[in-house]
């Protein structure tokens, strides 16, 4: 049987010789050039893909900044409470018939004898008078006034001292002395810190929710342009799992790319802030910054949380694409 090339039949009109049936056995004799790697079924570099990566990058960056800010607020609030809670004071009032110097010394001795005390320092008479200057003014002869004396007690790390026992001992041995453990102030500070942390977490939840919604809608938008691909794959016999897998992989990579750019940018920013803070530590400007903003480092947990957000964004894009593919397939079938 003679071999007629069907291409000739298709190429031009004229006499219509029938082509031989297609038979791939002839391919054994064909020389085949090496072919480049096949393109991905889902187009790798498209305008919608780049736009989606940009949206993911920007939203991840904003969410990461919010996370870092909340972590800083939490750290600062914890530091405030810790600083205030590490100090208590004993106030010794001048009482007629009692020697205030003896009472101060007795109170210092009682405090030093208690467990969990790191340091006890009694303010001198002059230092105590200076404490009331802001209210009474300077240049006055305060020597005749009954100025109370302050004893500042620094607590040792670890379990808190037995304040109830200390208060009882003071009451029996130094009746003019009262212990102030700043409970009221700490409670107010704790309430304020808790409110600040709750507000920060609330904002973080909103930002993450907005990020997820933005990424979801951007993914759906990008998927809309891929509907013809979904249809063709469906028509050539691809299973739903195969089609969804192709898109899920593609969008997972897009989400990771965007997340790494945005989250990586935020991580770099916090890394620079931490490095600058360490560099300025101990300097006057560093102390001022620390007083104003607290510790700017977000710590390992913060870096971990931001890395988690990168993965979350990638997962959101991948799952949204899968969901959209399944919806498209439902509408086709």
């Amino acid at each position, binding site marked *: 049987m003679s071999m007629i090339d*069907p291409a000739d039949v*298709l190429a031009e009109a004229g006499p219509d010789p*029938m*082509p031989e049936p*297609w038979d791939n056995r002839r391919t054994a004799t064909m020389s085949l050039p090496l072919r480049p790697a096949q393109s991905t079924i889902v187009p790798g570099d498209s305008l919608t893909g780049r736009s989606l990566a940009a949206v993911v990058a920007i939203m991840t960056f904003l969410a990461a900044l919010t996370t870092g800010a909340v972590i800083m607020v939490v750290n600062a609030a914890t530091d405030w409470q810790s600083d205030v809670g590490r100090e208590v004071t004993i106030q010794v009032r001048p009482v007629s018939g009692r020697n205030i110097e003896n009472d101060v010394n007795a109170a210092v001795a009682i405090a030093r004898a208690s467990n969990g005390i790191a340091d006890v320092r009694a303010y001198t008479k002059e230092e105590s008078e200076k404490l009331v200057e802001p209210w009474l003014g300077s240049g006055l002869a305060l020597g005749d006034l009954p100025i109370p004396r302050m004893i500042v007690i620094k607590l040792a790390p670890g379990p808190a001292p037995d304040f109830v026992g200390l208060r009882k001992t003071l009451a029996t041995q130094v009746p003019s002395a009262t212990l102030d453990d700043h409970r009221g102030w700490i409670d107010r500070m704790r309430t304020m810190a808790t409110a600040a942390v709750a507000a920060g977490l609330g904002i973080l939840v909103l930002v993450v929710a907005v990020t997820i919604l933005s990424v979801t809608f951007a993914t759906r938008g990008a998927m809309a342009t891929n509907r013809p691909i979904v249809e063709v794959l*469906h028509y*050539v*016999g691809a299973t739903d799992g195969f089609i969804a897998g192709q898109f899920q992989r593609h969008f997972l990579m897009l989400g990771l790319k965007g997340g790494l750019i945005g989250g990586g940018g935020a991580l770099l920013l916090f890394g620079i802030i931490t490095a600058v803070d360490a560099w300025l530590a101990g300097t006057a400007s560093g102390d001022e910054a620390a007083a104003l903003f607290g510790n700017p480092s977000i710590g390992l947990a913060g870096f971990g949380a931001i890395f988690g957000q990168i993965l979350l964004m990638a997962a959101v894009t991948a799952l949204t694409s899968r969901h959209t593919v399944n919806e498209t397939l439902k509408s086709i*079938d």
Partner: protein
Amino acid sequence: MIRFENVGLRYGLGPEVLRDLNFGIDSHSFQFLTGPSGAGKTSLLRLLFLTLRPTRGLISMFDHDTASLNKDGRATLRRRIGIVFQDFRLLDHLTTYENVSLPLRVFGKDEATYRAEVVELLHWVGLGERIDALPPILSGGEKQRAAIARAVIARPQLLLADEPTGNVDPNLGQRLLRLFIELNKSGTAVVIATHDIALMDEYDARRLVLHEGRLHVYD
């Protein structure tokens, strides 16, 4: 190979667009599906391609009751059917070679096992010089041949073509018809949906005529 028994189809709560279809398609057969516009040719093709389900009746394909198949089962059965769309439906970001080999790639075959076969088929349909061309730069006839090649690369038992000559000139239409005839000779059953009377007069084949939702078969 395929059998329709009392098949009816309606969209939503509308009237039946296809009524009491009783016919079969044998293996190695060749038939034209024709009828006026809106007669339901595309709907019938979609029933044959398992992208629509009948509202009543029984469709048996390759010894399977299609009503009992799940989605993956329908996808697997669809691999035994090739379809050529009027608008080609080639993927613009894939080359002619990649478009034609897409079904085999989807079936999970290694490219080394089908590369020669795809190149051979592309030469066979006259696209040997357009292997690496992207669809946007192909002519209408070339796109149509690429679409046909994609439909037959997996050696389907049934080939469906929806108005395959609708977008090409009569000369090319005749040449495409000869291509379908040759594919039929190689063992594939062919159903060509068309309202091109001249095309049908070119080849003496069975005619399935849809009129007002009913099918009339002229063997």
